[in-house]
């Protein structure tokens, strides 16, 4: 049993202290890095740079929201990065081919959801390990994207595509609106619907959910479908930012998304965690990368640093007893 279980009245005494103690490693990491970067580089704490961080974090956040739900069910979705790439490529090709934008977006969403259905069905109904299933889907999505484009970027997109990234509404860039909307949607689904309740229950005690007579497997598939759908939405922003669709642009994004989820305090076991931590986690990854950029650390080394930070943060959480 955890320490909190032994002294409930002690913990109850100070709700604020308890919250502080339960903050994921990402919160401390984010605070620490922000202070250090503000001191080290004058550029960091400027509106321009912070907006830039928020923009860079938007794609990652949206993917990480879906990843959070998957990990809460004790699953993982390695395919979200390549699926994002594939969705972008398909949307790009259709737009270049003169399709109406809503239809092109719709097809991309269907592709994201289709990969989710494939992953979720194999996991929930066939009982395969999520790691294996989504690793397979990773390869499939990447291959299809490469075949469709012969490995080239899709360029010559219509002008309005850039609005997904450059557009500003009420002084706030569109990607930040999109991220906020995806967050709100995920939050409401997670805490105010059966879908969210069952997402937690699948991770917490899948057998109990099945014995309660709920269609647990069906909801488990929906979780992967939702994650795939969010990856498709993220692909619109990504495509707009690059003003082109690259078949491999998403590869590696699943790595950052998993990092954001873990840093945000969501555990791989027993469905512990939540969506708010993921926002903090995504910001931490974003600020970390931004800081490394400002300090002139090469992209190649950044991946190693992010990896190191994950291990550090998770081992710290373990020491504090958060992951037990």
């Amino acid at each position, binding site marked *: 049993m955890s320490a909190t*279980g032994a002294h*409930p009245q002690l913990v109850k005494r100070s709700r604020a202290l308890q919250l502080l103690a339960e903050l994921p490693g990402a919160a401390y990491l984010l605070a620490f890095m922000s202070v250090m970067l503000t001191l080290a580089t004058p550029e960091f704490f400027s509106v321009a740079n912070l907006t830039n961080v928020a923009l860079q974090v938007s794609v990652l956040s949206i993917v990480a929201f879906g990843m959070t739900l998957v990990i809460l069910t004790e699953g993982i979705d390695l395919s979200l990065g390549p699926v994002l790439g594939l969705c972008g490529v398909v949307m790009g090709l259709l737009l270049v081919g003169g399709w109406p934008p809503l239809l092109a977006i719709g097809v991309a969403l269907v592709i994201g959801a289709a990969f989710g259905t494939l992953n979720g069905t194999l996991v929930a109904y066939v009982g395969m390990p999520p790691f294996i299933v989504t690793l397979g889907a990773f390869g499939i999505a990447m291959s299809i994207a490469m075949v469709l484009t012969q490995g080239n970027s899709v360029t010559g997109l219509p002008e309005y595509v850039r609005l997904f990234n450059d557009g500003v509404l009420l002084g706030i860039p569109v990607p930040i609106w999109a991220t906020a909307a995806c967050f709100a949607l995920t939050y*409401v689904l997670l805490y105010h*619907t*059966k879908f969210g*309740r069952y997402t937690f229950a699948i*991770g917490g005690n899948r057998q109990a*959910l099945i014995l309660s*007579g709920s269609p647990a497997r069906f909801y488990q598939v929906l979780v992967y479908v939702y994650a795939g759908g969010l990856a498709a939405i993220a692909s619109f922003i990504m495509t707009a930012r690059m003003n082109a669709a690259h078949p491999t642009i998403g590869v590696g994004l699943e790595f950052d998304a998993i990092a954001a989820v873990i840093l945000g305090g969501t555990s791989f076991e027993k469905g512990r965690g939540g969506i708010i931590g993921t926002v903090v986690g995504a910001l931490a990854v974003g600020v970390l990368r931004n800081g490394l950029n400002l300090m002139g650390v090469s992209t190649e080394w950044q991946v190693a640093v992010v990896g190191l930070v994950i291990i550090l943060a998770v081992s710290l959480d373990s020491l504090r007893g958060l992951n037990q």
Partner: protein
Amino acid sequence: MDQQTQPLVAMRGISKRYGGVQALADVNLDIYAGEVQALVGDNAAGKSTLIKILSGAVPRDSGAIHFDGREVDIGAPRDAKALGIETVYQDLALADNLDVASNIFLGRELTLNGPLRPFLDLRRMEEDARTLLSRLKINIPSIRQKVRSMSGGQRQSIAIARSVYFNARVVILDEPTAALGVEETRKVYDLVREMRSHGLAVLMISHNLNHVFEHSDRITVLKTGRLVGTRRVAETSRDEILRMIVSGEADPLPAAGQREAVS
């Protein structure tokens, strides 16, 4: 049958085979409203299989189940729940990462009305959970606390309360106090008594004969999938039940016929 009251649940000739193993062979079991029925026997006696058949978790090979005098078909947990048969499984009942109210309503969440139907009615579930716990005299500090941080006894109480909420008529308890301390065990049996006084039928598996004699009205003994016999607690002794468990043979019944018929 020569009983004064009709059983709420009557299981007749229940058989179940797992591959080459005969888990249950032609077992009869009656459960009465307002009574606690204990199920005892060695390991592999078939106790768990029998309750899983009644709760719909395991399909039976043959035999019939009567509920309230009518023959019913229980093929899935949903069917049993529709009849008001609720099961509290050992260690399987709760999701640790959800709070008390969420666990009580797991799988049967209340939703808002009208256009807001897709959304959970969190407030009503919390209120109902609080009312339920106080009706059953269960003391839980906070309804919003995650179950993970609670003691074994509190968890078991929540699991039992959950089974009672949905107009249960039969509550099945699989080793309800196996992992509990003395004080917590006492509280769980207080709860069992509370349910019985509300007219519920309780079917309980237990390895502890002291508990069985103290808290149940009837005892049914199984051995290697066969029914050895059923005795009223008031009319039997610990020695007799022990003999039945070990030998698998029932003592000859007294001629008076006050005891239940044994197959």
